[in-house]
C-alpha cells in the first residue's frame, strides 16, 4: 500500500505528537472514524527484527537519551542527574519497553481528595471521570490489548520468579496474588503469536506477543489510508492563530530541516516530560506562560510512582530470567488502609532484570562482596518490584532550563521532585514487606534496590473540572484552547498504585470519541 502523505498546508488534518500508548491509540481511533492524522514521532521506526535480547544494546537503541536534568531530594537526582526518566524514543514510544502490566484503577484511587484526607503540601484531586465511566473504556482497552484475565483471555503461565514470589506472599498471609493482567498474548490473538517467554520485555518484544503500538495501532491506522506517520520528526513549537486556536506545528526532520504542518487540531502525547515542555516552549504574546497554562498547572504536579526493588538470594536455583519480565503481582498492599502510616498503596510485582541492569542501575553505588555475591549467584536470585502511589505536589514539576538548550534551541527540561514523607514511609514499608516475602520463600539474604529513573511519568497537565484547577477537562481537551488536546499520562490528576498504560489507552479511546463527536 502506498504511503499516505498529507500536504504541509493541509489544515484539515489532526496532528498527533507521539506514537506511544496514547498517541498511536488516539491516531488509530481517529483514522478508523474517518479523520486524517499526521503523527510526528521523534524516534526512528524500528521493526521487531531490530530488537535485540541485550539490555545495554537495547538501552542505547530505544531510550530517550536527550539530556534532561533531575533536581530535588529524590535519590535519582544523585544517581542519574541527567536522566530523571527512562522513556523510549522510537515509533511505539514507551510501549516498546513496558513490562505490559495492565491494571484498572480502584474506586478510592480516583477519589483521592475525598478519601485520603488533608495532607500538608499535597494537591490531591479527584478524577473528573467516574470509575463506572472509565470501566467501560478499560474494558475496551483490555480487549484491544489482549489483557490476560479479562474477556476470557487465559493467564500467562507461571514463571520461576513468580512461583517463588507467589509462595513467599502466601506464606506471609497475602491473599490477592496472581500472574494475571498482562497485555501479552497467552495464546495467538489478533495476528500475533503467543508469548515465547524470552525474558526481554523491556528490550522490545521480538516475538510481538506483547502489545506495542509499533505493530498494532500503527499498521492498523496505516491500513485506513488516512495515517501519515513521520518518524524522526521532532515537534518544536505549536503555533496558534489570532483567535488563540492552535493551527500548526513546527517540527524538525531527520535531516535537520524545519517544516510547518498546518492542523485542525493538535493532540500531544509525548510523555509527561516532553508534553509540558512543548506547551511551555510554545509561549507567545497571547499565551506568555505557555499554551494551556493560564492556570499555571502545566508541568506541575509531576508524578512518577514510587519505585524500588528487592532481590532475594536463595540456596536453590531460581533462574528468574526465564520468562516475562514482570511475572505477576501481589495486590494486597494496594488496598485503602491508612493504618499503615501512609495513604495510597502499592503493588509488589515479581520482576527480573539481567546481570547488566542489575549491575548498572539496581545498586548504582554497589561494590565489594556485599554487592558482587548477588551478581555472581544470579541464577539463585528472585526479584520484587515496587509500584506505589506518589502524591501530587505543586512544586514537583517539569520546567524549562533558563539557559541550557538542545541542538534545536529548545530549553532542556528540568524535573524537580521532593519526596513527601508519605512517599518515604511507603517505600520503607515495601522494603520490609518484600524482604518478608522473599525470606518466607527461603531467601537467605536480600539486597535492596535503589529507586531508578521513572518510566511512569504522569500528572504534568492534570485534568480537572474547574479550569483553575488544572490544564484539561476530562477528555484531555485544554480548558483554554478548544482544539488542543493532551493524550498521555500527563492528564492523570493522581497516580494510583496501578501501572498507567491501560488507563492512558482507555482515555485515548474516550478522547477520540469526543473529538469525532465535536469536530465535524
Amino acid at each position, binding site marked *: 500500500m502506498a504511503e499516505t502523505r498529507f500536504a504541509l498546508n493541509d489544515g484539515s488534518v489532526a496532528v498527533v505528537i507521539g506514537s506511544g500508548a496514547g498517541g498511536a491509540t488516539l491516531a488509530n481511533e481517529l483514522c478508523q472514524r474517518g479523520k486524517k492524522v499526521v503523527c510526528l514521532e521523534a524516534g526512528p521506526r524500528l521493526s521487531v527484527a531490530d530488537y535485540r*535480547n541485550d539490555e545495554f544494546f537495547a538501552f542505547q537503541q530505544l531510550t530517550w537519551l536527550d539530556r534532561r536534568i533531575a533536581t530535588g531530594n529524590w535519590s535519582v537526582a544523585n544517581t542519574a542527574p541527567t536522566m530523571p526518566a527512562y522513556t523510549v524514543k522510537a515509533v511505539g514510544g514507551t510501549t516498546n519497553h513496558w513490562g505490559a502490566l495492565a491494571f484498572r484503577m480502584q474506586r478510592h484511587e480516583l477519589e483521592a481528595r475525598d478519601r485520603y484526607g488533608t495532607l500538608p503540601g499535597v494537591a490531591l484531586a479527584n478524577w473528573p471521570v467516574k470509575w463506572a465511566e472509565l470501566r467501560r473504556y478499560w474494558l475496551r482497552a483490555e480487549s484491544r490489548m489482549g489483557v490476560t484475565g479479562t474477556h476470557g483471555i487465559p493467564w*500467562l503461565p*507461571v514463571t520461576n520468579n513468580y*512461583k517463588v514470589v507467589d509462595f513467599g506472599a502466601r506464606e506471609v498471609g497475602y491473599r490477592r496474588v496472581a500472574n494475571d*493482567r498482562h497485555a501479552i498474548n497467552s495464546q495467538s490473538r489478533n495476528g500475533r503469536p503467543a508469548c515465547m517467554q524470552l525474558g526481554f520485555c523491556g528490550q522490545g518484544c521480538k516475538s510481538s506477543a506483547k502489545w506495542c503500538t509499533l505493530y498494532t495501532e500503527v499498521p492498523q491506522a496505516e491500513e485506513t489510508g488516512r495515517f501519515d506517520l513521520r518518524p524522526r520528526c521532532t515537534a518544536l513549537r505549536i503555533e496558534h492563530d489570532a483567535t488563540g486556536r492552535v493551527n500548526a506545528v513546527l517540527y524538525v526532520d531527520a535531516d535537520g530541516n524545519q517544516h510547518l504542518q498546518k492542523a485542525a487540531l493538535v493532540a500531544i502525547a509525548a510523555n509527561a516530560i516532553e508534553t509540558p515542555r512543548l506547551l511551555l516552549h510554545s509561549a507567545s504574546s497571547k499565551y506568555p506562560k505557555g499554551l494551556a497554562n493560564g492556570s499555571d498547572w502545566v508541568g506541575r504536579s509531576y508524578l512518577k510512582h514510587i519505585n524500588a526493588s528487592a532481590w532475594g538470594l536463595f540456596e536453590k536455583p531460581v*533462574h528468574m530470567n526465564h520468562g516475562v519480565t514482570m511475572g505477576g503481582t501481589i495486590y494486597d498492599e494496594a488496598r485503602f488502609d491508612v493504618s499503615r502510616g501512609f495513604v495510597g498503596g502499592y503493588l509488589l510485582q515479581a520482576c527480573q532484570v539481567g546481570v547488566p541492569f542489575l549491575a*548498572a542501575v539496581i545498586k548504582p553505588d554497589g561494590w565489594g562482596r556485599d554487592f558482587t555475591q548477588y551478581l555472581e549467584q544470579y541464577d539463585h536470585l528472585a526479584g520484587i518490584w515496587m509500584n506505589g502511589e506518589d502524591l501530587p505536589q505543586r512544586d514537583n514539576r517539569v520546567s524549562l532550563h533558563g539557559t541550557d538548550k538542545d541542538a534545536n534551541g529548545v530549553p532542556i527540561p528540568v524535573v524537580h521532585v521532593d519526596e513527601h514523607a508519605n512517599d518515604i514511609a511507603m517505600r520503607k514499608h515495601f522494603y520490609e514487606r518484600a524482604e518478608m516475602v522473599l525470606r518466607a520463600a527461603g531467601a537467605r539474604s536480600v539486597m535492596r534496590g535503589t529507586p531508578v529513573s521513572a518510566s511512569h511519568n504522569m500528572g504534568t497537565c492534570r485534568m480537572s473540572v474547574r479550569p483553575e484547577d488544572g490544564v484539561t477537562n476530562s477528555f484531555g481537551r485544554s480548558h483554554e484552547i478548544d482544539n488542543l488536546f493532551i493524550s498521555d499520562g500527563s492528564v492523570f490528576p493522581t497516580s494510583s498504585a496501578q501501572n498507567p498504560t491501560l488507563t492512558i489507552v482507555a482515555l485515548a479511546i474516550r478522547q477520540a470519541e469526543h473529538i469525532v463527536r465535536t469536530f465535524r
Partner: protein
Amino acid sequence: MSIADTPSAMSFAATLERREFLVAAVIATASALVPQIARSNDAAIGTAADWQNVLQAMFPHPMLDANFYGVPAGALIASADKDPATRELLAHGWRRLSGEAGGDWSGANAASKHAALTGIVGTPLFGLLRQTTVFTLYANPDVWKAFGYDGDAWHIGGYAGDALVTVDWLPDPPVNSGPPVKTGGTK
C-alpha cells in the same frame, strides 16, 4: 562529558554517553593480553596490571580469572591515553589508593584495600572505575555464563513450554493460568 564532571554517584545516562568510547577501547584491546594492552607505561597513573588489581578488589569474584579484569583495566588506560581529564583522575587516584595501601597496592592485605576503596566511594574516581567495570566485565557473556545468566533467549526460541518452570523445590501456586478467569484485585 569530561571525567571531571562525572557525578559522585554513577549516572546511568552519563555512563551510556561514555560507553561508546569505552567499548571502542575494549574492542581495540580485547585481543591483547594484560599488560601488553596498556600502551602507557607511565607509573604516575598506575599500570593496567595495577588497575586490574584494584578492580579485582573492588568487584571481587573468586570464580573469575584475574584476566577478566584486564579488559576494564585496559579500557581505563586506553581512555587515559586519549583524555587528559581521565589521566588526571587516574594519576590522582593511583597516588591515593597506593598511598593508603602503604605504598604497595598489590602487596597490601584485603582489609587495607577495602579501607582504601571505602575512602573513594562517591568520588569521580569511584564513578569511573564502576562504570568502566559495569560496561565491560558485566557485559561480558563469558562472565554471564559464570554467574548463571543466559542472556539472549531468541536463539533458543525462548523458554515457553514444559521447561519454563525449573523451580522444583517449592509447591506450585494454588491458582494457575487459564480460565475460569479470576481477577487479581483491581476488578
